[in-house]
């Protein structure tokens, strides 16, 4: 039995965390993640959760404490945004390579400079190769659902990788929406107990975590990590299937919106997908064969599935809310183009939008479809919504 609550994205994340009741949470404040931790701190203060909340002195220490707690055998979470994650950077790689199933809501916010507290994806996109699984959310419901699923994905014995649940700062974190939440016991049963593999606190078997690998072993350990990321795909699918049975809500590596017969497909992730859907609706009403593919799972990158979903299109427009500053295009674009290369004759172009929280509206989305219709494709990314 589920119930419906009016929740912001941060509150939805906190509600999921209350139900997950992690053994340890480490936290450091940064806008727009703060309200999530305020609410969770209330749960701790009221004794609603058995969590040990470590209020660290930096995000670097937050992730470090998470690694320590996870290695000790605890179920562990933290949350951050932007500069906070930039400060964690070094330890993001370590968390993944030590194979610690830490779950982290990442409330997307632009990276400095100039300092800006509003949404874009430069923080999480920069971390796309750290070995973390990345799930992106369109709305507050998905924030809740993804956080719950993330725990089960991360802890699967074939995976054991950390998961970042990315959702747009302010646009989702601070917007109240209707969110259906599961019963506490349903979440508990769904995620099950966490049984760590050879934890530090198992005194009977003293294990060494984090040794030095020289040329003779590092590559093998990295190969293992790559395999874990590959193993994720079926696990994510299986977890989504089980979650659907419980919640009635369906999840996949991506959502397709009128793509089957579409000639022109837009690819985007995050909250902008809602705006894109409205644009698709209007254009479909006008008889145009357009569609939207909304990515949910960016790591592991669902290349094969994307090929199947995109290769019939005449044109693909990839929307990036982060600029790779590489003079070609954004990160989502680079990967989509690499994935469909050799599988499709579609023309592909890239649009950088919404940096630092800049709004994107339906007309802008429609103009992207119009470009494809007009045969306007460029080798370098278009910037949309910026003043010339």
């Amino acid at each position, binding site marked *: 039995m589920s119930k419906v609550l009016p929740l912001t994205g941060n509150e939805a994340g906190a509600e999921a965390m209350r139900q997950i009741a992690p053994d340890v949470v480490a936290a450091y404040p940064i806008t727009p993640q703060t309200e999530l931790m305020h609410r969770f701190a209330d749960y701790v203060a009221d004794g609603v959760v058995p969590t040990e909340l470590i209020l660290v002195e930096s995000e670097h220490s937050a992730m470090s404490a998470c690694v320590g707690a996870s290695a000790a055998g605890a179920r562990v979470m933290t949350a951050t945004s932007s500069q906070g994650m930039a400060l964690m950077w070094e330890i993001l790689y370590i968390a993944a*390579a*030590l*194979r*610690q199933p830490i779950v982290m809501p990442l409330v997307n916010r632009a990276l400095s400079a100039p300092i800006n507290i509003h949404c874009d994806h430069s923080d999480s996109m920069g971390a796309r190769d750290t070995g973390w699984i990345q799930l992106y959310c369109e709305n507050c419901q998905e924030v809740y659902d993804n956080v719950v699923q993330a725990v089960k994905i991360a802890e699967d014995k074939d995976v*054991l990788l950390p998961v970042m649940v990315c959702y747009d700062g302010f646009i989702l974190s601070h917007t109240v929406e209707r969110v259906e939440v599961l019963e506490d016991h349903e979440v508990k049963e769904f995620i099950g107990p966490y049984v760590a*593999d*050879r934890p530090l606190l198992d005194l009977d*078997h*003293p*294990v*060494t*975590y*984090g*040794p030095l*690998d020289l040329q*003779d*072993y590092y*590559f*093998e*350990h990295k*190969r*293992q990590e790559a*395999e*874990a990321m590959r193993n994720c795909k079926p696990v994510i699918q299986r977890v989504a299937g089980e979650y659907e049975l419980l919640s009635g809500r369906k999840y996949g590596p991506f959502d397709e919106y009128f793509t089957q017969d579409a000639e022109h497909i837009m690819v985007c992730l995050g909250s902008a997908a809602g705006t894109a859907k409205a644009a698709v609706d209007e254009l479909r009403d006008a008889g145009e064969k357009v569609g939207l593919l909304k990515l949910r799972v960016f790591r592991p990158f669902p290349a094969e599935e994307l090929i199947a979903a995109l290769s019939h299109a005449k044109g693909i427009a990839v929307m990036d809310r982060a600029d790779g500053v590489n003079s070609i295009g954004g990160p989502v674009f680079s990967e989509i183009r690499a994935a469909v290369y050799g599988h499709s004759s579609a023309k592909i172009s890239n649009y950088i939008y919404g940096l630092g929280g800049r709004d994107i509206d339906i007309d802008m989305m429609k103009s992207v479809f119009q470009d494809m219709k007009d045969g306007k494709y460029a080798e370098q990314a278009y910037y949309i919504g910026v003043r010339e």
Partner: protein
Amino acid sequence: MPEKGWRELPIGGKILQGGNSVEYETGSWRTYRPVVDKAKCINCMRCWLLCPDSAIYAEGEEMAGYDYMHCKGCGICEEICPVDAIEMVLESEKDKIPADERGVKAIEEAREKAK
């Protein structure tokens, strides 16, 4: 230790047998080897505590010789022995001193245990 492929290694780089470094020989680093004169030794156990390589045996509260598989020949034990019972002898002249097979035994036992 034979080098394993990535499928066989424990995940996350963990070393499951803490203390398995005993299988690794460091005795070959030595230029000088410490030799103890048990007639002089008062079993104060200082060398046992202060040897950086835990290469001195203690048995029944007595200094019971050297683990030559691991002793690196640093000379600390000689330096801190309060009664000068320890002498550093050039490895090349080690035949002049009685052979002590204990170190070899220790490493064999450790390897056996690790199997």
